[in-house]
């Protein structure tokens, strides 16, 4: 077990209570088997009564050495592996990887492929946020939203299933574009979902936004200032909730985002409630992007001619996209062979999780549950 088994922790505990902490402080292990850690995350809490005086994350339980595997696979062979990092947003991972390799090859996906990619990625963002909303609310004690969120997410997964046959680890995209043409009623399905979804969001709003228990549990909990976010590298909704109006889809547009109108929602206080509001609004914006995109899917090819054997010229590339959780970056070094020389994946969850300590200090144990939920981590991506 990473981070050492029992005895290491014991040594740590005695050490900290002697040095860092006063006599009354207690080290409590949260996880790795704990329902609200969303996977196998272990957080060592240093407690003074119920107050958190410090936290330490122990991660790596799901480490599979994805970056090492990449060096022993061809560029195409590695593509399905990235789906298994952030497994609730596989489409976004795939988009980032395919675009990065395309840039390495100095190739570009055809317009039709880019638009379909955009639609699927935005649907994935909604699905990811829905799962976040459901589980986050569940953690805090609101059981009902989970079922509603799962219901809507199911509709999106059905669209994925119809499109490429898979629901979770989709491998929806290929280097150079798409393998599959959109199915016959693709636009209709997306449109129906989007039309319906507006009403559905209102249901969550009715359940949570004005709910005094919800506000009590999230307002002023886990506050992070804009400066803290940037210093700690936190990105995505966490950054935006702190008031930074920045989104890679606008700052450095990729896929087909430059063609669509959408807003970047921002918060003001940088607390858990603001992050909730930001993600809710992001779902609305994603819905608008999808509606604009299905209006006009350009005809034409869906796969650029990149060749069957990919040998990118020696060199390196960095490219990042705005995944549902933040900046998802890929840094790939090519040595001119069919296998990448080095693939580095910059996972948003890993970097965002670093902010946990800052956010949790001074709060109660039960708030830690809310704070882990609000960062929106996926351990498959944290550990890779």
């Amino acid at each position, binding site marked *: 077990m990473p*981070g050492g088994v029992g005895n290491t922790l014991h040594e740590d505990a005695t050490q900290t209570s002697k040095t860092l902490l006063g006599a009354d402080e207690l080290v409590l292990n949260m996880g790795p088997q704990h329902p609200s850690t969303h996977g196998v995350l272990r957080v060592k809490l240093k407690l003074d009564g119920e107050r958190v005086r410090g936290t330490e994350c122990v991660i790596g339980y799901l480490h599979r050495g994805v970056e090492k595997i990449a060096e*022993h696979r061809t560029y195409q062979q590695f593509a399905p592996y990235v789906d298994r990092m952030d497994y609730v947003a596989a489409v976004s991972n795939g988009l980032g990887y395919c675009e990065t390799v395309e840039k390495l090859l100095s190739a570009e996906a055809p317009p039709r492929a880019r638009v379909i990619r955009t639609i699927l990625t935005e649907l994935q963002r909604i699905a990811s946020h829905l799962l976040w909303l459901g589980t986050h609310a569940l953690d805090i004690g609101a059981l009902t939203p989970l079922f509603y969120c799962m219901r809507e997410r199911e509709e999106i997964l059905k669209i994925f299933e119809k499109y490429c046959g898979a629901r979770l680890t989709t491998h929806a995209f290929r280097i150079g574009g798409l393998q599959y043409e959109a199915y016959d009623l693709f636009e209709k399905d997306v449109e129906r979902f989007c039309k319906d979804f507006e009403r559905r969001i209102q249901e969550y709003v009715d359940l949570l936004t004005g709910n005094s228990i919800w506000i009590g549990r999230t307002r002023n909990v886990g506050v992070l200032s804009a400066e803290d976010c940037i210093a700690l*590298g936190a990105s995505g909704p966490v950054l935006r909730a702190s008031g930074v109006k920045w989104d890679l889809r606008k700052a450095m547009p990729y896929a087909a985002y430059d063609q669509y109108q959408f807003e970047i929602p921002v918060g003001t206080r940088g607390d858990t409630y603001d992050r909730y509001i930001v993600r809710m609004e992001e779902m609305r914006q994603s819905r608008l992007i999808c509606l604009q995109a299905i209006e006009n899917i350009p005809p034409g090819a869906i796969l650029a001619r990149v060749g069957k054997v990919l040998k990118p010229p*020696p060199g390196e590339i*960095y490219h990042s996209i705005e995944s549902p959780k933040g900046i998802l970056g890929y840094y790939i070094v090519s*040595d001119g062979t069919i296998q990448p020389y080095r693939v580095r994946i910059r996972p948003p969850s890993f970097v965002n999780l670093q902010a946990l300590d800052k956010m949790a200090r001074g709060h109660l144990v039960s708030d830690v549950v809310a704070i882990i939920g609000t960062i929106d981590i996926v351990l498959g991506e944290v550990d890779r």
Partner: protein
Amino acid sequence: MVDESKASQSSDSLKPDAAGAESGPGTPQTADAPGVPTAKPVAPAKPAATKTPVPVQVPLDNELSRRYRERFGAGILDALEDRKQPYLVIDAAKLAEIGRYSRDEEKFELLEDFTAVDWPRREKRFDLIAILYSFTHNTRLRLKIPLAEGEQAASLVEIWPTANWLEREIFDLFGIVFAGHPNLRRILLPDEWQGHPLRKDYDILQQDTPWVRENLGIESGQ
């Protein structure tokens, strides 16, 4: 999944053509100015593009690189551009100083990523790669820091706190030590694990067998 022959074959393929002090793409072994960077055998190794063989690494000479060169002189070993992405190759001794300058003067507020690449045949074996992003100018810059085996790099945690876990990950997987890091321990692998898996001489099937035997109670994790 990968049989032995495949693994050894692919580790052969990591020979960056010439032996000895030869380098990876675009990293100079000497600070020999723009003229001919190590963009060397780019042309022959270009099967994909059949048209004009454009070298992918070209010398970078813009305002930004001039400011850095003016300020740090020999601290900037080279300035290059790869597929329109600029990067500076810098002297490891100047890392902290250049980092601070980048954040405060050039407004690269965000350390977007920090990682490493292993080039075992090169004299300076590792490249540290820092990817900087500027919210002010909406630009990126890559810093590349060649580092010899056993050489320590200055920690960037003071400048960008986000470097904390990123440096721990580099230490964990490459074994590069960061001087001044507040808590340099393994992060993804167990504390007692031996070896650094992302080094090129660490085979994909390799593992710390004694650790696996002792802690998991099985012969092999494969």
